[in-house]
């Protein structure tokens, strides 16, 4: 048998999926008595309309891209690391912890920031290792383990913010006391995006791209993900590879958390992960685990998130509409993929 699905037909179906998702979202808006075109225009202007807006998109893009990068590793290994949210959170907690310990020390701020990043990575890996341990030795499905650990991570954040790390005199949802400005990731003048977080995000996805596309590690991980038994019989140490996948994803999630603390919020807040873990899962599904597409699609999602803030201001529409569009997009892509396979099989 010869495969007939060419690049071109794939592209057509992906285009159809986007059209379908837009149609669906437009329908929602029409039913809500809003003008879809106006809404899309606002989203575009609100995300790309000025340098300021675009820099805000980048602020969201970096942690989202880091989370997606990590998830690509676990997806390749056939693991649904839904615990990525908790891993981001723990990264943020560890970074905050390191900064709290070191902020009054004599170390240079740059060094403290570096230690903050390393601690974040460590925190994410630690949290991922719990899920990995449960999965590999306890036989607990990583989805359930991950959900549980997400819950614990949220509870831990709240406890820290209202307990040991509360601001003097008050416990507030606004989070812990902000760090002094020397410990903030330096930004481009007048913008909120830091060149350093951009560098981390880009290096991150580049590393993952090379790792998954070009190395023995990536290939073996793929083998483990596609057929664990056959991979084992081929002599691949499957347990180690599953560990590696979880830990790598945890590392990237932890870095995402560190970026949230060091570059965005400058403190620990209750929902520090900003849902980038779940959004990252959507991105990873949408790109069908092709690392090459991670950066642009994550950018698109980030732009939707930022651009949709315009909707409540201008059109009095709820900005969760961007979530509707994102969800519809993933569903439509999956749907179209199914349709494509059915049609091609029948040909």
């Amino acid at each position, binding site marked *: 048998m010869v*495969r007939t699905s060419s690049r071109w037909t794939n592209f057509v179906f992906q285009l159809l999926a986007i059209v379908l998702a837009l149609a669906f979202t437009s329908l929602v808006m029409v039913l809500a008595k809003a003008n879809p075109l106006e809404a899309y225009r606002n989203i575009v202007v609100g995300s790309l309309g000025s340098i300021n807006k675009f820099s805000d998109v980048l602020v969201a893009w970096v942690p989202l891209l880091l989370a997606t990068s990590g998830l690509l590793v676990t997806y390749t290994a056939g693991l649904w690391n839904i615990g990525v949210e908790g891993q981001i959170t723990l990264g943020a907690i560890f970074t905050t912890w390191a900064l709290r310990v070191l902020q009054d020390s004599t170390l240079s701020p740059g060094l403290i920031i570096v230690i903050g990043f390393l601690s974040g990575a460590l925190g994410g890996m630690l949290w991922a290792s719990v899920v990995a341990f449960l999965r590999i030795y306890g036989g607990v499905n990583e989805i359930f383990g991950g959900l549980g650990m997400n819950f614990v991570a949220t509870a831990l954040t709240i406890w820290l913010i209202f307990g040991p790390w509360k601001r003097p005199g008050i416990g507030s949802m606004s989070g812990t006391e902000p760090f002094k400005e020397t410990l903030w990731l330096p930004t481009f003048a007048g913008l909120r995006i830091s060149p350093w977080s951009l560098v981390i995000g880009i290096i991150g996805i580049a590393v993952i791209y090379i790792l998954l596309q070009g190395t*023995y590690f990536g290939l073996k991980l793929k083998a483990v993900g596609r057929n664990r038994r056959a991979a084992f019989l081929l*002599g691949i140490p499957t347990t180690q590879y599953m560990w590696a996948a979880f830990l790598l994803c945890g590392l990237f999630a932890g870095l995402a958390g560190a970026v949230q603390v060091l570059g965005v919020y400058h403190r620990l807040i209750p929902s520090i992960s900003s849902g980038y873990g779940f959004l990252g899962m959507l991105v990873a599904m949408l790109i069908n685990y092709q690392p090459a597409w991670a950066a642009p699609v994550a950018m698109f999602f980030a732009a939707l998130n930022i651009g949709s803030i315009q909707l409540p201001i201008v059109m009095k529409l709820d900005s969760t509409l961007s979530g509707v569009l994102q969800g519809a997009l993933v569903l439509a892509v999956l749907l179209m993929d199914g349709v494509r396979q059915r049609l091609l099989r029948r*040909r």
Partner: protein
Amino acid sequence: MNVELINIHKWFGPVHANDGITLRIPSGVIQGLLGENGAGKSTLMKILSGFYQADEGEIRLDGKPVKIESPADAIRHGVGMLHQDPLDFPPMRVVDNLLIGHRGGLFPNRAEAIRAMQDLQARFGFNIDPYAYVDSLTVGERQQLEIMRLLWLGARVLILDEPTTGISANQKEKLFATLRALAEQGMTVIFVSHKLEEVEELCHRVAVLRQGKLVGEVEPPYRTEDLVKLMFGKVVLPEDKTHFDSKESLFRLENLSIEDYRLQIRNVNLTVHRGEVIGLAGMEGSGQRQFLQACAGIIRPVAGEIYLGEKRLTGRPYREFLEAGITYVPAARLEEGLIPGLTLTEHFVLAEPQNGFVVNRQKAEVLTTQRIADFSIKGVPSSTVESLSGGNQQRALLAMLRQPLSVILLEHPTRGLDIESTIWIWGKLKERCRQGTAIIFTSADLEEILHYSDRILVFFGGKVSQPIEATKTSVEELGQLIGGKGF
């Protein structure tokens, strides 16, 4: 039920898998469908059983044109198909597997299913525990289960695609008897096979496919040469029968005992020589698989010793066996041997020792092209393994074997392959023997075992016979041993 397939066409991309096939099968007949791998037999049967839709053509059942859109549709029309690779739901119990697809209320009637199953088991002489988990069954037992399921669902046309590949001679006889009985009751049986002797023995009439076309319909008495000619378009030469047993000790088992939850194998002593071929005979599930896996280091024996030369391997991890040059080739190609979704190139990269950190794509591509040529695999380096036919998957598996190797452990190396491929694969394996590699393999085909082995071990319910010289035994004697006589 009368089955008529009229002018059936089916394309897969550029491949014309069925090219205007017209075949009429009256009820009460066992119709043989013969052809080499890739001739279009399976495709035609999948069209009849609703897995595919024909691009052109018509299906009539008892003269009435029908549209069969899914396997469920097919079974509603009374057409049931038993697959080459048994389709079932592994993490389930046998009885629940039986209940799947059964018409009935919201709450399945387990008791009834078990009663029906016991009935059918008695008729066929099968022996499957209704509460066993399906993934603990052998391939042969899974096929038995599938036959029972289809009969229980009310199939009146039974399609069997290579049904004898997984089961013992004994079970085969039982199966044939049952098929004959079913035909006498008016059931239509379509028997798809590439094994001439089986078709000749069983079928009332035979249709032969070649390259998607129906090239001939034959009625008894059959002449084997005619059938071979029809199948291949030429006459196939029998291969030579060379042996390379060096009598030099290579692989040694001392008092090896293996246990799993179903059977126990006790105190096996065996010394395998360089270049020797050991055949493992026995009914499916008699312990051959466990034995092979213990030799491969996949399951740990409970007692005894394993030596490769002077190196003691007992209790060492699987990877050390692998590094020592002991390789296991499983029967379930797509479940255990190959990795669906990965290309041939990727498989060969994985099979070779790792060289550095970054994969050298160019080198891998060259190697793959070479292997594809060496092993006559019909595919390109970027073909995913699941897109290959069964025979080509088997060739790919063998092409992945490293060089050199001490011991190759093969489970059903030629199951489901046509004569040509079988001969070709054994040619490749014998080349290894010439280099001093020992081979231990299982097969349900006693002829194959007798033909290629130097010595034979017969398994019966976990008991293992003394090694038998292949030249000093016969199919009949082995058959008796397999049935438990002489243990």
